């Protein structure tokens, strides 16, 4: 892969869109899970009376929120995957194919040039 092929794509409008979408998605997810996780840690450290309240039978609020951390992790992973499949994958596949085609084109040109060169050398002899 030629370096300038990749760098050239960097200014492409579609790549900018892809990048903006990924950053927004990543920041949302990081913000959501870190915020929720540290809120939970803070509750465990400072709001002990609240965490000790009974929720369901012998299950208290602390354990219930802990299990909810698992649920939220699964939900965020699912959310990320669904968004990536719909909004990121098609764009990145398009750009990747284009880069591949450009490279194939360059490769063909290089081969033709080399062949021409070889024939010239041969006829000159």
């Amino acid at each position, binding site marked *: *892969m*030629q*370096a300038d*092929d*990749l*760098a050239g*794509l*960097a*200014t492409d409008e579609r*790549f900018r869109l*892809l*990048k903006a979408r*990924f950053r927004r998605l*990543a920041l949302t*997810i*990081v913000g959501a*899970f*870190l915020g929720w*996780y*540290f809120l*939970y*840690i803070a509750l*465990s*450290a*400072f709001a*002990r009376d609240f*965490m*000790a309240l009974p929720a*369901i*039978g*012998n*299950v*208290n609020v*602390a*354990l219930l929120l*802990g*299990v909810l*951390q*698992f649920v939220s*992790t*699964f939900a*965020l*992973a699912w959310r*990320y*995957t669904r968004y*990536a499949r719909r909004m990121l*994958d098609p764009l*990145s*596949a398009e*750009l*990747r194919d284009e*880069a*591949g085609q450009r*490279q194939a084109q360059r490769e063909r040109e290089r081969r033709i040039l080399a062949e021409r060169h070889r024939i010239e050398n041969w006829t000159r002899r």
Partner: protein
Amino acid sequence: MTIGLFAVFIVITLGVTIWARVNTKGTDDFYAGGRTFSGAQNGLALAGDYMSAASFLGIAGIIALSGYDGFLYSIGFLVAWLLTLLLVELMRNAGRFTMADVLSYRGGKRPMVRTAAAVSTVTVSVFYLVAQMVGAGALVSLLLGIHPGETFMGISPEAAKVITILVVGMMMIFYVSYGGMKGTTWVQIIKAVLLMAGTTALTVLVLSRFGFNPSEMLGAADARSGKPGEFLNPGQRFAKDADGIIGVLDFVSLAVALVLGTAGLPHIVGRFFTVPDARAARTSVNWAIGLVGAFYLMTLALGFGATALVGQQAITAQDPSGNTAALQLAQAVGESVAGPVGGEILLAFIGAVAFATILAVVSGLVLASSTSLAHDFFGHVLMFGKPKESQEVAVARFSAFVIGVFAVFLAVLVRDMNVAFLVALAFAMAASANLPAIVLSLFWRRFNSTGVVCGVYGGLLGSIVLVALSPVLSGGPRSLLPPPVDFHVFPLENPGLVSIPFAFLCAVAGTLLSREKADPGRYSELSVRALTGAGAHGQSAKNVGGGR
């Protein structure tokens, strides 16, 4: 009997390793298993690499003794995977075999980045390795039921420990140097299946004792915990009221390291490259999240079940730190289902699973560090990026041997110390040394190789020095060094809260203070490649990615 079951595991994995050897030809095969594993296979292997004996036996024990607070470990270990999910595709696309491929992408051929990455990879791996191998030694004396002074078939407990560490060491060296990534991945897959099966069986049996009503199990656990009424509430282990603000900070510091460390663990990162493309890498992390999540939820049943059915007194009588809780639970549950024979069988099975777990995790670690030594240090620093492929593989096999022997030596040396803190330290080091460099490489346009080097060494040294000056080593109630020695100045046992920001600071300062100009072209190139996968090393890496 445990030994018999474990022997079956060894025979099967040896067969797989030999098969893998036949199918391993070049560096792509040795380091990345030919990049032909499917997302599901690699997801199982990721989970296998990640779920160590420390989490299986250790967390079950901590929950059994400290109740709710032990569960906090489980949550941190799982939540961390979301960060991994966000980074995995970018790293898969940008790198080839190791983290250093990503870090050095922008700095061109400067060897110091590779050296720093190799140093950090090997250091983190060796710390983690020693913790696991000492755990193996402790496990065997618990399984054989030998207490100080007793002997088992003429073997003293000390000798049994040393023999176990040696056997585990020999096995892991063999798996890695003989089977490479292909062999090791299959070992991980088999182990993950065994571990999930064992944990699920145990969980179902435990819950069946309480009519599948978790609340009833919690009630029974509370009653036999020695602290009825408080056992299920926060504050049994972390941030106790007596410790004041230092306790709270220490607790937060641990939580930060757990969440940010996973994505920087070398044996996890190395696994990103074993799949054909970024999409498969994403699938594999999703699989890992599902498996790891299910596993850690089940540790609740194991831990609380052990307290409820075995009782805290019986657990601490066997091992004060609770590492035997899961094993004692297996015996108790088996007995209640099928009498004493059932107890023996289930105990033997769970014991064998624990050994398989340790063996698989240490193999993953040795593979990660030997890959880094051979690919980064030998290939790029010593040979200026132009080694012969066969040469590089030979070096990788040899470094697996050297690192393995070194780790065995260290483990035998410290076999009687309580080295559980090393696992948390390895996470803190990975979070401080590796994560800042990875994130800044991918997202900061101005970042340069001086910044990488400063960040990696700053994070690595920062976390080690802070632990050395903390109550872990001297001056605390549970310190490694005996009481009169006291040189601790740093009050926290977990360095992450300070060392991670410090590493970011070092990386930024190094970048801004150095005269080196960042190459904006390389950054654009990296971001296109990371996000689209254009030019990434694929399954047929030699045709697609060879040009770079």
